[in-house]
């Protein structure tokens, strides 16, 4: 029986017309450039239904928030600052989730098996993910700025007042920085948890539970009040939105992010480079 199958195999191998092309001639194989990896990672952020709508939600949220301001805000509040705040709040939730999923998708969906086989240098894959995530973040911020500006023009035309342009370039820069830090925090949680559910829960603990806990501590314990800006990362980051940053504020931002962002990010990246991919 075995012999028969074997012979049949040889016969059909000779007759086979669907055999693959000759792999014999060796080609010149060029290294994979970083730009290509960034392009691939960007593509992977958009090419699923979930990913696409997550990205689309950036635009949708901007438009809805702008419309809400035009409809409900009192006339004197129709300023560029109101629009940027209204759009910025929901965006600061959506953007870190985009960052989280760019990492955890490789593990939750197990696509890492293919990704890391085609690109067996995980540090490069992670770098490409950071770059593509930040590109999306900055593009989203510029889009939000444009939608907000349009809203300001339309809103002012409706109220009949002159449009108030009260967001300076420096302020916009700070807002972008705050969102970039938020995305990096999402990225860090993704790298640390390597699971979508875990990282998203972690993110809500970070952005909802911790600020309340620190706030309560500061409210009831006098000794903590001076310490809070140094250890409460949300407190330190939120200042970027609405306050003029002083040298001390920057230092506090640096210290808080060192503890809550940079060190855990380094630990997570180290784990990603070493962990077994299954």
């Amino acid at each position, binding site marked *: *029986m*075995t*012999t028969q*199958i*074997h012979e049949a*195999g040889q016969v*059909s*191998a000779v007759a*086979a017309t*669907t*055999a*693959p*092309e*000759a*792999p*014999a001639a*060796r*080609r010149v*194989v*060029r*290294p*994979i450039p970083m730009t*290509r*990896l960034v*392009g*691939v990672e960007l*593509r*992977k952020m958009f*090419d*699923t*239904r*979930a*990913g696409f709508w997550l990205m689309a939600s950036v635009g949708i949220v901007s438009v809805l928030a702008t419309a809400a301001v035009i409809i409900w805000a009192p006339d004197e509040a129709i300023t560029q600052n109101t629009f940027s705040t209204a759009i910025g709040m929901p965006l600061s939730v959506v953007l870190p989730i985009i960052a989280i999923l760019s990492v955890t*998708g490789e593990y939750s*969906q*197990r*696509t*890492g*098996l*293919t990704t*890391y*086989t*085609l*690109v*067996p*240098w995980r540090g490069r894959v992670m770098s490409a993910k950071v770059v593509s995530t930040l590109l999306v973040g900055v593009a989203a911020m510029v889009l939000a700025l444009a939608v907000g500006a349009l809203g300001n023009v339309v809103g002012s035309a409706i109220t009949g007042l002159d449009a108030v342009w009260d967001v300076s370039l420096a302020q916009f820069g700070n807002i972008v920085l705050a969102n970039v830090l938020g995305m990096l925090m999402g990225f860090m949680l993704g790298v640390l948890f390597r699971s979508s559910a875990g990282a998203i829960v972690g993110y809500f603990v970070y952005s909802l539970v911790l600020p309340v806990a620190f706030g309560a501590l500061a409210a009831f314990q006098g000794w903590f009040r001076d310490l809070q800006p140094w250890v409460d990362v949300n407190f330190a980051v939120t200042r970027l939105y609405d306050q003029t940053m002083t040298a001390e504020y920057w230092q506090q931002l640096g210290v808080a992010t060192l503890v809550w962002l940079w060190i855990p990010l380094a630990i997570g990246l180290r784990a990603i480079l*070493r962990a*077994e*991919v*299954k």
Partner: protein
Amino acid sequence: MISVEHLTKQYGPFTAVDNVSFTAATGRVTGFLGPNGAGKSTTMRIMVGLTRPSTGHVTVSGRDYRELVNPGLEVGVLLDASAQHAGRTGREILAIAAQTMGLPKSSVAETLARVGLTEDEAERRVRNYSLGMRQRLGIATALIGDPQVLILDEPANGLDPAGIRWMRDLLRGFADQGGTVLLSSHLLHEIEVIADDIVVIGHGHIVAQGSKAELLAAAGTLVRTADPSQQDRLARALHEASVVTTPIDGGLRADADPELVGETAHRAGVVLRELRAADGAGLEEMFLELTADTAREGAAA
């Protein structure tokens, strides 16, 4: 060529892969055979740099996998056909691989045709794929870079008989044109049909390896007496001639070549009904033993 040298992988006190060495030669299809949990997938993951070995190393075409500058163009890998984002279409998954390797867009449609996925199927999301379709897509991902080496973990899993035949022809053609193929399976039959060389692994170490012909020849002789009551007499005679025998399917398997068995039977005056080289009976027995061990452990756990 793939060369595995003294590979060991330990997880705490458990040794998943134990000093494994073998070679998958150029121009041949090497079957990596073992029951589930024998260490096949771990060995393959180590080959492509997804898992770090405790000791030992693997070279593919003479180099460490991580030294390849664009591995997809040199080694086609399929480790788990189900490890794909369920929300992507088959075409998209292949397009991502092509883009990563820097291949032209046209290669996607060509490769889809080559593995027999229709345009309509390629547009569907992978969540709606059967296991067989996922395997074809996985093989497409492995083939698209026109590599010289293929590493495929259980590629025939989920394929129907026609699919297995297709895969056999595909791999045969690939090897005949100078490619190297390593494929794993937990089914002896699949490996027998497809492979030229066989490496058998059980409990993390290699229990047999060689060409299929060698392993089948090593299986000894199958002999049946015309009168079943004479079987004991033949067994005794063979035993006196220092030949080990095992009863099998109303006959005997003897660890000797057919000539010696025939001669012994003649001298003992036993009439034979059948005398032939035992096609893989030894391999099958050995494999069953391995599988039975695992099954027992599974039942005890």
